[in-house]
């Protein structure tokens, strides 16, 4: 080990940079895997990547003047879910009468612009990402596009795998350009 303090400092910085790179890569892998589960309709497996105390929310958005802020409601929601209510949704979609997704939508989720940072709790990360959801249904050529930013909290489990502890979906829409929200973002 070098006795040169500048060399030690440089060593520490590159260790940190490497740790950051690894963390970013793991976060990306997790989010991509989560999208794969949803796009492939593997919803029961998707429930497994959610932490038991998950808070999954999407506030309603309205148009405000620039100085009035981005317009996200603090009292109205498109999704206001916890693990149990999300489980109810998935169980319902597995019944034979869930017409909204039977036939299922053809979805493709594009996740990008991923920014991860250490949260104040040691084993958690605050992650922001963009999501574009392409959704086709039935035999028509029309498709829907839903765009949002997601503010997530990832938690490292004892197994070393990541789990989703919190998601806040910030739509780029006020009046939603979709006939229902029978899919997850």
């Amino acid at each position, binding site marked *: 080990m070098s006795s040169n303090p500048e060399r030690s400092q440089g060593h520490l910085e590159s260790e940190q940079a490497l740790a950051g790179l690894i963390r970013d890569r793991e976060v990306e892998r997790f989010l991509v895997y989560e999208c794969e589960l949803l796009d492939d309709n593997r919803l029961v497996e998707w429930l497994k990547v959610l932490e038991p105390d998950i808070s999954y929310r999407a506030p309603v958005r309205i148009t405000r003047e620039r*100085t*009035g802020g981005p317009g996200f409601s603090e009292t109205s929601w498109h999704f206001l879910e916890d693990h149990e209510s999300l489980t109810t949704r998935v169980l319902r979609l597995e019944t034979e009468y869930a017409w909204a997704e039977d036939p299922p939508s053809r979805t493709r989720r594009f996740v990008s612009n991923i920014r991860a940072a250490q949260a104040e709790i040691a084993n958690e990360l605050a992650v922001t990402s963009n999501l574009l959801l392409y959704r086709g249904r039935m035999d028509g050529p029309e498709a829907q596009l839903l765009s949002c930013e997601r503010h997530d909290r990832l938690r490292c489990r004892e197994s070393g795998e990541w789990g989703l502890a919190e998601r806040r979906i910030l739509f780029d829409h006020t009046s939603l350009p979709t006939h229902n929200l029978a899919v997850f973002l």
Partner: protein
Amino acid sequence: MPESAHRPVGEEIQIGNEFAVVRVRKVVTRNGERLEIIASRLGYSILLDPLELEALSWQTHDSFSRLLSSSGGPDHDEDAPGDRE
């Protein structure tokens, strides 16, 4: 009033809607205090003393309709313009 004759104290408050945004703050002079109102969009500001503020408090909204009848700022031959920022 020359710039150096007053200084702001405390927090600035911003109040806005889609039609106007103003900033409001207390300023102190050597001998007293006033309320500064800054309307940056149109570029006006004014320093109101407590008596003027009291007069504001007993106005009705109709009084302000009269003031707003020239709604882009004062007419050139009407009230003396406020200090431009």
